[in-house]
C-alpha cells in the first residue's frame, strides 16, 4: 500500500528531514511512526500527502508512484487518503455534520450520498447526538473524533494521523486510539505519527522509529522505547484490544538502517 524506496528529503537551510529511508507498509496494517521532534515524522506524512516531493528516491502509494503523478491528479490521490492532525483543523463556523459533509461536498458527491454517509460515520465515532453542535462546543476528544469522521467519511484506503493525541489527556487519547483501531479493522491502512509512548506501548503494533531523518527501527508489535525484549512477549494487549498479527511487512525486532 505504501512503499518508500531510498527516500531523501532536505529542506532549505540543509536540515535533513529524511535520509535514505526505505519502508514497506502493506494494506490493512496499523503502524506507529515514532521519534523525537524533528526526526522526520511530519515530513513522512507530508510526503504521503504529496504536499512535498522527495529530493531523491521513490514513493509508491496505492499502486502509483506519486512523484510521477501530474499536478492535476493530486486531488484525486488525496481522496484516497484521510488525514488527521494534532490541531483538528475543523471549520469553526460549521456544525459537526457540516464539517464532515464538507469533505464530501467539495469532491462533488451528491446530496443523497452525503445524507446517508455522514450519519453513518458520525455513528461510528459516537457523535450522532452532537451533529448540530459547533466545534467550539465540543471537548478536544470530541473535536478529534469529528476530524477522524471527516477523514474517514469518504472511505479512504489510507488514514494518516499526525500526533492525533498530542492535545489530549491519556484517557481521551485511548478512546481516539480505539477508534483508529476500529477503522483499521475495516481494512483501512492506518499510519500514526506520535511521541505518545504510553499509547504505543499499550497498542503493541508495528513501530517505525526515526531519528534525525534516519530509520533506526522497524519492529512488529513494538513499544515506544528501543527495547527488543518486550516485543518478544508478543500478543496480549493490556488495553484489551484485539491485536492482529502484523503482516509480513517489516522485519521483526530492532533494525539499524543507517545508510
Amino acid at each position: 500500500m505504501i512503499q518508500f524506496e531510498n527516500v531523501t528529503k532536505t529542506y532549505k537551510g540543509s536540515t535533513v528531514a529524511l535520509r535514505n529511508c526505505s519502508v514497506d507498509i502493506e494494506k490493512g496494517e496499523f503502524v506507529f511512526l515514532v521519534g523525537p521532534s524533528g526526526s522526520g515524522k511530519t515530513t513522512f506524512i507530508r510526503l504521503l500527502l504529496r504536499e512535498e516531493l522527495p529530493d531523491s528516491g521513490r514513493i509508491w502509494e496505492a499502486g502509483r508512484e506519486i512523484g510521477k503523478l501530474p499536478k492535476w491528479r493530486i486531488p484525486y490521490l488525496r481522496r484516497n487518503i484521510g488525514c488527521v492532525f494534532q490541531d483538528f483543523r475543523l471549520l469553526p463556523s460549521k456544525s459537526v455534520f457540516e464539517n464532515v459533509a464538507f469533505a464530501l461536498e467539495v469532491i462533488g458527491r451528491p446530496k443523497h450520498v452525503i445524507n446517508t454517509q455522514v450519519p453513518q460515520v458520525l455513528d461510528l465515532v459516537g457523535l450522532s447526538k452532537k451533529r448540530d453542535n459547533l466545534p467550539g462546543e465540543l471537548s478536544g476528544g470530541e473535536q478529534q473524533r469529528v476530524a477522524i469522521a471527516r477523514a474517514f467519511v469518504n472511505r479512504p484506503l489510507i488514514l494518516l494521523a499526525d500526533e492525533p493525541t498530542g492535545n489530549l489527556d491519556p484517557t481521551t487519547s485511548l478512546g481516539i486510539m480505539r477508534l483508529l483501531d476500529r477503522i483499521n479493522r475495516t481494512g483501512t491502512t492506518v499510519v500514526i505519527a506520535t511521541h505518545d509512548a504510553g499509547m504505543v506501548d499499550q497498542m503493541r503494533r508495528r513501530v517505525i522509529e526515526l531519528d534525525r531523518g534516519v530509520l533506526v527501527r522497524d519492529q512488529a508489535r513494538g513499544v515506544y522505547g528501543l527495547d527488543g525484549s518486550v516485543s518478544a512477549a508478543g500478543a496480549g494487549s493490556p488495553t484489551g484490544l484485539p491485536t492482529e498479527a502484523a503482516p509480513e511487512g517489516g522485519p521483526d525486532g530492532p533494525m539499524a538502517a543507517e545508510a
Partner: protein
Amino acid sequence: MAVSMRYVSREATTNLWRNRMMTVAAVLTVAVSLALVGSALLLKQGAAHATERWQQGVNVVVFVDAGASHSEFTSIGRQLDQLPYVRSCTPRSQAWDYNEARSIEPAEVFQALTPAITPSSWRCALSQPSEASLIVQQFSGKPGVQHVASPSAQIRTMETVIHVLQWAFLAVAAILLLSASVLILNTIRMAIFARRREVSVMKLVGATNWFIRLPFMAEGLVQGLLGSLVAVLVVLGLYFGLLDQTKTAANQSSLIVQMSLGGAEVAVTCIVVLVVGVLAGVIGSALAVRRFLDV
C-alpha cells in the same frame, strides 16, 4: 466538471455579502474607470466622424466674380483640377450660391444681395486639407477670382485638441482600469485569506483546484458585471444627453452635431465596456486565488 452551480452561487453570494464594503469599493472603481473608458471610446468615434465629415466636405471655396465670362470660370476650374492635392472640384452656379447665402448669411446682408451680383464658385475637396492655405495664396489675386475661402485655423485647432483629448481620456481610463483590476484582485485575496483554513481543508480532502477557484471567480464576475453595468448607464446617459443637445442645437453645423454617433456604435461601445468589466473581474480573481492553491 462536476461542480454544482448551486454550490458556486451560494459560496459567491455569501462572500460578496460578508465583504460588502470591499465589494462596493471594487464595483465603484470598475464603474468609474469603465465609464471613462466608454466615454473615451465615444469621444474617439465622434472625433473620427467629425474629421471624416470635414474632410469629405468642401475644404476650399473659390468665388468667381459675378461678371466673369463662362470661359474664365471653366479655366479657373481646370487650373484647380491640375493641382496634385485637390481631389475634386464641383461648380456652383450663381443661383445655387444665392440660395445658400439665404440660409447662412445674416438677414441684412442677404437683403442687399441679388442672384445677379452673387458670385458663382468652385467647391474643392482636398486630398491634403492642410494645403488649403496654398490655394488661398495662389488664387487670391487671379483675374476673375473674387476671393478664396478656406476653413479657419480654429477648426484645425479644434481637431488637434480633440485628438489630444481622446488619447488623454484613453490613458486615464487605462490607468483606472488597471487600478480597478488591482482592487478586485485585492478584494478577492482578502476574501480568500479570511477563508484560508477552509481552502486548506478543501485541498486536504481532495477538492480540485477548479472547484476551489470557481466560487471566487464567480465573485469577481459579479463585481465586474455590476461595475460595468453602472458604467454602461453612465455612457448611455451621456449619449442621450448629447443627442438632446444636437436636436435642439441652433447651428446644425456645430461640432456637437458633426460628432453625433449612430445607435449601433453606442451599442458596440456598451458591449465592449461590459466585456472588459467582466474579464477584469474574472481574471483578477483567478490571479488572486492562484497563490493559495499552490500546495
